[in-house]
């Protein structure tokens, strides 16, 4: 049962990623393929006992980041001729060949790893456990994340907002 789920979600994640990169005509479809990939990844997280991270993945990536991408695509109306030429056969060939070679290499190593999974407590990956770690051991990264978010909002407003008058 679990292996079936793993293969279904893995193929969905990889297929969504391929669809995103491979959709040439309409950027909206690329973004929707990305949603497929993100949802499949969230399911894989949940299979790895990371329930909270999986739900956050859906909330942040599928619910906010891809929506922002779609907004920008609609905002700029990127469906017609603004796209420009994308023909670069040599670059395409070299890129794909390189990626396939590296993936096969990595696969030959990674697929042979046979480390046993440890038993984890039922608490593992729950919101409470994440909270305890985040607010004690990882306090400084948490505060720095707040600073980063502030910087992001200031920068984005400065870039996109035009002064009136």
């Amino acid at each position, binding site marked *: *049962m*679990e292996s079936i*789920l793993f293969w279904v979600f893995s193929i969905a994640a990889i297929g969504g990623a391929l669809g995103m990169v491979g959709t040439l005509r309409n950027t*909206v479809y690329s973004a929707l393929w990305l949603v497929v990939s993100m949802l499949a990844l969230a399911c894989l997280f*949940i*299979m790895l006992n990371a329930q*909270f991270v999986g739900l*956050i993945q859906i*909330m*942040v990536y599928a*619910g*906010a*980041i891809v*929506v*922002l991408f779609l*907004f*920008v695509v*609609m*905002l*700029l*109306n990127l*469906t*017609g001729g603004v796209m420009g030429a994308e023909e670069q056969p040599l670059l395409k060939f070299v890129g794909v060949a390189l990626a396939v070679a590296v993936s096969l290499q990595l696969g030959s190593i990674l697929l042979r790893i046979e480390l046993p999974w440890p038993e984890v407590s039922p608490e593992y990956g729950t*919101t*409470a456990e*994440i*909270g*305890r770690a*985040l*607010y004690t051991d990882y*306090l400084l990264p*948490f*505060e720095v*994340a*707040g*600073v980063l*978010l*502030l910087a*992001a*909002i*200031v920068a*984005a*407003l400065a870039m*996109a*907002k035009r002064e*009136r008058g």
Partner: protein
Amino acid sequence: MSEYAGLGLFMALGAGTILLLLVLTSVLGPRLRFAEKDEPFECGESPLVSPYRRFPVKFYMVAISFIIFDLEVVFLYPWAVVFRDLGWYGLLVAAPFLSMLSIALAYEWMKGALEWD
């Protein structure tokens, strides 16, 4: 994994209900076709408009605010769950984070990014 059986059942039931309703309407529903019924419902507007038209950039401002404060909420979920265990310490460590994002909100307000026009 077995604790997700209920979720799987729920999703199967949801999909089944939708499929059942679609099949039932296509089998049982009466068919009356005329030109006005076949066009998409557009409230009297001309239906022949491309759905891809430029949105005003105002929507982007809302989307940026949403994404940043969405992340804030993501960090506050675990805080809310362990709040009683942490006690005053929890309030103390969350205060800098929250004030940082309050500054972000105040900055947006000052720049007028929260106003629609």
